[in-house]
């Protein structure tokens, strides 16, 4: 497919995101008519409809946009850096690190002492895992992948241990359910905690375009073109650590968005890595909003969790990707 003009895809993706975000404010478990919701938002007096939008649905939508964009952008940058179509944000260990931090908060009952303990410890866990990956993996792309895998497994081992020794069946349930990811009961406090880290991480990642373009030629040629490979690797790890670590610590593990978004974008931009960044972020946000809308409008007895939806849709995509890769490289 021929690459579309430079501005077309970002514009289309931004419009789609806007429409989806607006839709997510009007759809939900509590069925309130759009007219009533609009009246609630604009009227100066507090009303149930107004509160549902400003205190429940708006923070949820903003968080979904931030987290989805962080995952989409991280996936695009990592796939470009490692030149590996299967690279995804969890690769560097920060996702499991965040999960471990959050689970520790639940394990010791800190979450019941103050509500923000879970995301706060999640953030610390993500930073710790990222630092560990950095310490062992900064020398080359291969060691980065290996260190990420090692850190991921280590965090997973601790997670399993926490579940094993859970103080009560209820705590074990709470931990495993947290790991499935959710936007329910997320407030503006969560947005305020995660947003600075996510935005800082995304700011770093968005400067990587020129470097990952040059990496299309391989590391040696990129380096000969003046790209500082070592610094690029460190900055990507830092950016992904901040953005994905903060994202995971507030909503739990959300798979596949970071893997899928860049692939959906790539054919439309002539496969040029730098041009996948912005559309991947916008599309990641849109996909996560859709997934969140799904958890709200699909009625089940127990809440359908976010991570379940993204995996249910993402895993078949993985098969499709495999078939396509097999076709490209027979």
């Amino acid at each position, binding site marked *: 497919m021929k690459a579309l003009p430079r501005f077309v895809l970002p514009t289309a993706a931004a419009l789609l995101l806007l429409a989806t975000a607006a839709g997510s404010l009007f759809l939900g478990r509590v069925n309130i008519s759009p007219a009533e919701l609009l009246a609630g938002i604009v009227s100066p007096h507090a009303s149930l409809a107004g509160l549902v939008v400003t205190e429940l649905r708006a923070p949820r939508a903003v968080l979904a946009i931030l987290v989805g964009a962080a995952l989409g952008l991280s996936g695009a940058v990592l796939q470009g850096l490692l030149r590996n179509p299967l690279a995804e944000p969890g690769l560097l260990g920060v996702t499991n690190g965040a999960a471990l931090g959050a689970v520790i908060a639940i394990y010791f009952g800190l979450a019941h002492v103050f509500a923000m303990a879970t995301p706060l410890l999640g953030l610390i866990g993500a930073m710790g895992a990222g630092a560990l990956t950095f310490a062992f993996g900064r020398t080359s792309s291969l060691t980065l992948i290996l260190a990420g895998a090692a850190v991921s497994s280590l965090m997973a081992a601790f997670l399993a241990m926490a579940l094993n020794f859970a103080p009560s069946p209820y705590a074990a349930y709470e931990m495993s359910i947290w790991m499935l990811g959710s936007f329910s009961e997320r407030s503006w406090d969560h947005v305020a905690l995660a947003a600075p880290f996510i935005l800082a991480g995304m700011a770093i990642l968005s400067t990587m375009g020129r470097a990952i373009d*040059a990496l299309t030629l391989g590391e040696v*040629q990129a380096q000969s073109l003046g790209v500082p490979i070592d610094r690029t690797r460190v900055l990507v790890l830092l950016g992904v650590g901040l953005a994905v670590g903060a994202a995971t610590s507030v909503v739990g593990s959300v798979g596949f968005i970071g893997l899928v978004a860049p692939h959906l974008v790539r054919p439309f931009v002539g*496969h040029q890595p730098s041009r996948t960044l912005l559309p991947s972020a916008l599309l990641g946000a849109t996909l996560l909003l859709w997934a969140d809308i799904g958890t709200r409008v699909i009625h089940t007895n127990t809440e359908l969790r976010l991570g379940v939806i993204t995996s249910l849709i993402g895993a078949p995509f993985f098969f499709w990707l495999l078939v396509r890769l097999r076709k490209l490289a027979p």
Partner: protein
Amino acid sequence: MTRLEASHLSVRRAGRAIVDDVSFAMTDGTFVAVVGANGAGKSTLLSVLAGLLTPDAGMASMDGAPVVRMDRRELARRRAYLPQNPRAEWPIAVERLVALGLTPQLPAFGGLPGGWEPRLSEAIAACDLTAHRLQPATTLSGGELARAMLARALIGEPQVLIADEPVAGLDPRHALDTMARLEALAAAGKLVVAAMHDLTLAARFASHLMALKAGRLVAFGPTAQTLTADLIGEVFDVEANVVGEGTGVYVDYRGLTDRG
């Protein structure tokens, strides 16, 4: 006038000298073929000259400035480097691949500014790739890809081109074509340094020849005077005749040297 110099260069790996106390100076307008057996240190020497590898001792310098301490982008504008068997990792269009050669010239964000378009078309045409301009680079044949990578290296108009085995894996037609392009570059006043194994091609196209053996510089000088049967025997442990001269010269291998 560009001058590329090495003074007492040494690179050691695991206690072994890969490049051992190598010194020389080369100037633009020459095409230097670097020859030597596998493992003689050709690739390592080229990496050091290109500023991609810091030597353990000695230094490589361009116009008197050590290359490892030059500004990366400034260095990238002045010399281009082509590794062995370069390949494209994503199916980007050939014109995008060639435009990547302008990375050190461009600002940190955005596409290719319109002013560069004529240069891009020119570089693509110069390497006979106009018909392949929008083709995904991953679908090019070996010879086409080699030309695309050469166009990538030359689009920024570097003064020095350092290429590691640019004709490895190419069929005779594409090998001759690539060598003619490198020769033309040198004739146009650039400095071309290329590692290679085909001594006949080196003899016909390169103005100068540099021979390495076990990391040491064995010979360096104008090709006609330097490439002799004795040198080939010393460097490769094979018996060979250098037959003819000028554009008709060829190297005839007769067998292994009996080292009994």
